[in-house]
């Protein structure tokens, strides 16, 4: 009945366990930077394939192209961090401007017949309000009626797209008031205003997630909602707020998009949700909630946009774009998985 004694092993085990957290903490910190090398490589390829790549015109063009998508990504990243999903963002970007136009444009004279119910200057506030309303309704269905968020927003996606088609009669709206176009078409300090606005919104959002209690609450809720509740966090209220913010951002992206192209196009935002999810996830935001940063999400958007730009400059036939877009998503996922060292499931 002799037992083998190994006291040495027992005493060594404790310090070894203590040193583990520090190492993986560093890895977790770099996780949000995992796409930066990818961006650099893309820039290098762009520089090699075309002299036009590294010009301010081209780069600002890419930046402006990214603004609308990046606002959706900003909203979706917040929603994913809090542990929910919102597919309807891609319809909100189209339907919110259309409803705003419908309410402010005169009932006769133009090709598109509005109601003329509100003065023209209210176009942007109304558009944002529509966004808030959409977010609030989604939140009500998900949080109060406890419906499945994925399916609720899938329904909202289809329904809102249908609403846009019904109101706009499937046409683009070209007689847009100048106040509505201004932000999307003007330039400040030599760069499109939309780019500045996006940068500011990302900075504000990033700072709120890093330094505000309510921002940190998003990670707590997404990480373990039950634990957050016991810590006194108002889980439903915060989640609801985040859903509303996401939809407002999508509506605002609609304002920028409309200004950028000078009209509300009938299929504005259609099919974007795949890109939104791809950018957010390759940027290191977890689909399971509780993980990721806005900076990471932003690098995700830039990666996707830069690939398209480099490919266009390299003369890749546009018919291959879709294929390559999908490919880059998978490649970026693999890179971010190994750069962060964490399984994504």
């Amino acid at each position, binding site marked *: 009945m002799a037992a083998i004694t190994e006291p040495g092993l027992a005493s060594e085990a404790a310090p070894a366990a203590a040193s583990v957290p520090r190492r993986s903490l560093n890895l977790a910190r770099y996780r949000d930077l995992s796409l930066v090398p990818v961006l650099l490589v893309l820039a290098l390829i762009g520089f090699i394939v075309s002299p036009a790549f590294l010009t301010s015109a081209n780069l600002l063009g890419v930046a402006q192209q990214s603004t609308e998508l990046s606002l959706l990504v900003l909203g979706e990243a917040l929603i994913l961090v809090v542990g929910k999903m919102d597919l309807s963002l891609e319809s909100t970007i189209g339907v919110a401007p259309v409803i705003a136009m419908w309410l402010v444009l005169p009932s006769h004279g133009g090709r598109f017949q509005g109601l003329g119910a509100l003065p023209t200057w209210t176009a942007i506030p109304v558009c944002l309000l529509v966004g808030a309303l959409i977010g609030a309704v989604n939140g009500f269905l998900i949080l109060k009626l406890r419906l499945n968020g994925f399916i609720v927003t899938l329904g909202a996606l289809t329904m809102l797209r249908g609403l846009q088609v019904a109101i706009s009669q499937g046409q683009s709206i070209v007689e847009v008031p100048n106040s509505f176009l201004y932000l999307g078409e003007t330039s400040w300090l030599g760069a499109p205003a939309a780019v500045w606005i996006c940068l500011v919104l990302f900075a504000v959002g990033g700072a709120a997630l890093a*330094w505000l209690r309510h921002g940190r609450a998003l990670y707590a809720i997404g990480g373990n909602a039950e*634990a957050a509740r016991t810590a006194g966090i108002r889980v439903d209220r915060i989640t609801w707020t985040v859903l509303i913010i996401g939809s407002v951002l999508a509506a605002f992206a609609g304002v920028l998009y409309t200004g950028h192209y000078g009209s509300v196009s009938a299929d504005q935002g259609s099919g974007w949700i795949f890109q939104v999810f791809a950018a957010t996830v390759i940027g290191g935001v977890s689909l399971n909630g509780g993980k990721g940063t806005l900076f990471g999400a932003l690098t995700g958007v830039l990666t996707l946009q830069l690939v398209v730009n480099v490919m266009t400059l390299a003369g890749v036939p546009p018919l291959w774009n879709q294929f390559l877009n999908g490919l880059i998503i998978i490649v970026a996922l693999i890179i971010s998985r190994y750069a962060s060292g964490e399984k994504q499931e």
Partner: protein
Amino acid sequence: MADTAQAPAAQAVATVPVVEAAGITKRFGATVALRDAKIAIDPGESHALVGRNGAGKSTLVSVLTGIQQPDTGTLSFSGKPAPAFGDTDAWRSRVACVYQRSTVIGGLTVAENLFLNRQSEGGFRPIRWKALRARAEALLAEYGVDVSPTARIADLTVEQRQFVEIARALSFGARFIILDEPTAKLDARGIERLFTKLRGLQEQGVAFLFISHHLQEVYELCTRVTVYRDARHILTAPVEGLGHDALVEAMTGESSAADPVAAAAASRPRTVGSQPVLEVRGLTLPGVYTDLSLTVQAGEVVGLAGATASGNVQLGETVAGLHRPRAGQLAVRGRTVRLGDIPAALAAGIGFVPEDRHLQGLVPERSVAENATLTVTDQLGPFGTVLPSRTRDFARRMIEDLDIKTPDAATPVSALSGGNQQKVVVARALATEPELVVAIRPTNGVDIKSKEFLLGRFRRHAEQGRAALIVSDELDDLRTCDRVVTMFHGRIAAEYPAGWTDEQLVAAMEGIAGTGHPTQPRPTDLTDTTETEHERDTKGPRHGGHH
């Protein structure tokens, strides 16, 4: 340590209880969860609350922590009435609860978890991370928790997480903490460290309500015990002088004098000599265990004991085909089994009760019948079909065989109590009529009655000329085994025939052969109680069978 443990009991007359509940009744629809229940805990006391599943313990915890409002009854903290229902901050400054389920957030750092939702003074004040870390460090140091505030919770051990949770609870100013099965996920060494910490906090005047299924721990840590049964308060008594049998009797409402498990172990028929049921030769899983050999004979129940990192669980899982070892051989009744192949292991006659029934054992939304027959769907109809009638019949047999308390075979398994869920998992393992059943911590989170039943069921299985391998660090599980093989750091440390003492086995699991270990009789002041404890243990009928 005994002085501090006994002092509060002596002062009890003079001091106001830190919490006192009386006449508490709580109904949920038609079911009565608590009926005129009461409890009183003195400052600095370590009070145990025991009872079988459904006795009303969880409801009492909800009432004491302000999560549920009782229908009737009074509740006071340190003589003052309980705060208004819903005033979270007020409740938290009086009582804290460390739940069975972890309430810290894995992705965030220790510092942030400690001050979750109060990282800064106001909602729009930015968080000063450096100051927050310093505060966390001070808080951890105050309670002697050796964890870095910048570590992520996900990277900590279960035990460290619990310490963080306890520190967080105390930081709200509460001097009364409820521990709901804190030891369920700890190994023996972790439990010992937890207890040391709790005794230290007790000296600082913190009172505990300790909820556990392990009576041994109650004797080790607590000064008084309250027993609940069928939603009622049964008794409150000092632990000292309350016999093991009396306690079990209070919990179950029946005398445990005739212990069926031990009786079965006593009259065990042995069919040694024939082909061994399981033969393991030189198994090696790098980093987990090395060159392991083990033989299980027909008619035998073998215990495989070991602490968390010993590799005993992984060895059990390897036998069931969950891991593919780098080297070694595994044979059932002399026939070699392909390693790392679960269907092959099943076909060879190995039944498996996994460690975590929620993660690996059950499909919660599906019926008892479906869950119980998951391993035998090929026997339930011709040409790959699964006939509902046959499934039902098969399930009914299993329900009867294992005494599963369920309204119907079609009831979703999630509606059953923990003990009955575990029985469904065991049913699933036994459904294939395996030569060998490998059960990993088969009685984890199971009430004492179901525990005895399950262990007895494994014994019956072995008596039919088959065998059982029980992988556990639970002394109660191992006591019913014919012999216990202990592992330490991936190797077999020792083997004991039935009749070992707790010290021997715990020491072997800790890799120490009986000298100078904390679980050994503690310093002079406690030796008295420890000795009586062992007298009780060795005299008990549970042990009588082995001698």
